């Protein structure tokens, strides 16, 4: 007989994965500096992290910089001469100056602003001004320090572990395989991105994107009714699937929803970021709509530790949560849709942007700082996680595995 533990006993999804256990979840991981430092050392500095997409660096010489405070570094990701993608710690070998000072750009070589030491796109040290005054310098030992980099379906991942324990393919595992073949590159010819620093633990933010139970309530003025209709008032999902490290979620929309007037106009000229009804998963890998449901709307690849990738019909999006401290997070939200060919399509995409900003960034984001304050108050020691919130429990379980390794 199962122990009764106050509303957290199990249910359809928990029963599939009894190894996750049941019961309340401690608040400590959301507020503790010590815990944050353990996450930094044993997770963030050891695993593959998504830092962008190949469309950001299409041609040789294109680069972008990623400040990774949680990995104690800043990296440059660059498309090399022959098309290979390189990543380096953003640090001149001379005296530590960050080599690249702007967020993105294009160049033939990297030249340090301090003393003009110059590096090739492959990181080799090419030129030291006044070289004769560096007696016996061996330039071939003074290249930029590389960072492991690899790609999956156009997503660029880096690993700051000098000897990564597994390949990217191995790390992404079964969930990576599930989403392989979705038309990412075809869609990602256009993108809109937002960034914000919020005063909340990164997991407080991520948790809002690991469950759709909140949609009927928090989003009741915006997207609530479009997803949680009469026959599914709390938006129970088609599937929650967990694997060793990552997880999958498959979500329906309400067939009762009628688009608002401007939404209907926008739909006429393009697919919206989160399509509601009449979404088709045709042409996508089967696991994206694992139940083959006609009311399928979107699916999520919850990529441990900190990226949530959501795919829909004609568009996809990512949320990445970069921890800055135990109570501060740099949140990046990116939506991808094919580049607009006409001005009418531009209008349609602007509507997608507006509803994404309001219905997701504003509505979800507004809560995070308030939640963090109350978690830190000490008024309670635990949070309660229901059956449809299984992925939150899974995240903590995976973390435990890494922290206890």
């Amino acid at each position: 007989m199962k122990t009764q533990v106050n509303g957290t006993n199990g249910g359809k999804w928990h029963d599939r994965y009894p190894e996750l256990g049941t019961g309340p979840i401690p608040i400590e991981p959301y507020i503790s500096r010590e815990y944050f430092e353990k996450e930094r050392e044993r997770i963030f500095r050891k695993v593959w992290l998504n830092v962008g997409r190949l469309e950001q660096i299409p041609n040789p010489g294109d680069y972008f910089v990623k400040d990774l405070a949680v990995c104690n570094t800043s990296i440059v990701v660059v498309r090399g001469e022959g098309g290979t993608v390189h990543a380096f710690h953003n640090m001149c070998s001379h005296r530590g100056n960050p080599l690249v000072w702007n967020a993105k750009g294009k160049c033939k070589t990297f030249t340090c602003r301090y003393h003009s030491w110059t590096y090739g796109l492959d990181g080799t040290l090419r030129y030291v001004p006044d070289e004769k005054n560096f007696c016996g310098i061996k330039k071939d030992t003074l290249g930029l320090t590389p960072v492991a980099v690899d790609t999956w379906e156009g997503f660029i991942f880096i690993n700051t572990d000098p000897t990564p324990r597994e390949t990217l393919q191995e790390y992404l595992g079964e969930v990576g395989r599930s989403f392989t073949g979705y038309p990412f590159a075809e869609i990602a010819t256009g993108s809109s991105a937002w960034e914000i620093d919020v005063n909340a633990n990164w997991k407080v933010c991520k948790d809002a994107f690991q469950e759709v139970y909140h949609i009927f309530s928090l989003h009741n003025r915006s997207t609530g009714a479009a997803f949680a209709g009469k026959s599914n008032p709390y938006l129970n999902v088609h599937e929650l699937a967990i694997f060793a490290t990552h997880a999958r979620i498959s979500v329906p929309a309400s067939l009762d929803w009628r688009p608002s007037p401007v939404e209907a106009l926008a739909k006429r000229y393009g697919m919206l970021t989160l399509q509601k009804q009449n979404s088709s998963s045709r042409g996508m890998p089967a696991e994206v709509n694992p139940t083959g449901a006609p009311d399928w709307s979107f699916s999520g690849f919850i990529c441990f530790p900190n990226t949530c990738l959501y795919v829909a019909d004609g568009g996809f999006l990512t949320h990445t949560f970069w921890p800055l401290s135990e109570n501060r997070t740099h949140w990046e939200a990116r939506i991808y849709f094919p580049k607009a060919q006409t001005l009418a399509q531009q209008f349609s995409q602007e509507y997608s942007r507006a509803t994404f900003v309001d219905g997701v960034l504003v509505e979800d984001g507004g809560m995070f700082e308030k939640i963090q304050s109350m978690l830190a108050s000490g008024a309670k020691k635990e949070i309660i996680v229901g059956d449809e919130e299984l992925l939150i429990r899974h995240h903590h379980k995976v973390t435990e595995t890494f922290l206890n390794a």
Partner: protein
Amino acid sequence: MSEYRLPESFQDLVPYLAWSLPTDRERSAKRQSSTMAEINAFYQAMLPRMEEVLSYLALYPTEQVPPEVQGLLYLTLSLAKIAPAVEMYGEPNAEGLDTLRLVNVDIYPPRS
């Protein structure tokens, strides 16, 4: 006063040219600083014309847009921005974060 004109067939929208703003930040700021009455008036003026406006805009590729067509496009982008205020919230802003805290970033390389 907006520097934009509008195409011949949309002169009835000239009174709303203050909403014809070229950047996302300006359009967000205008939404935030407008009253619901002002937002509703703009919405009510645009909505009945939108089928015709979009059929017209569908004919234009996104490059080398004539200025008066640009002006019309920006009106529609403002409509997209304020539609949630009218259709969902009944007030100028969504409940939550101040949108001006969000930094809209351009992650793709500039078109050469």
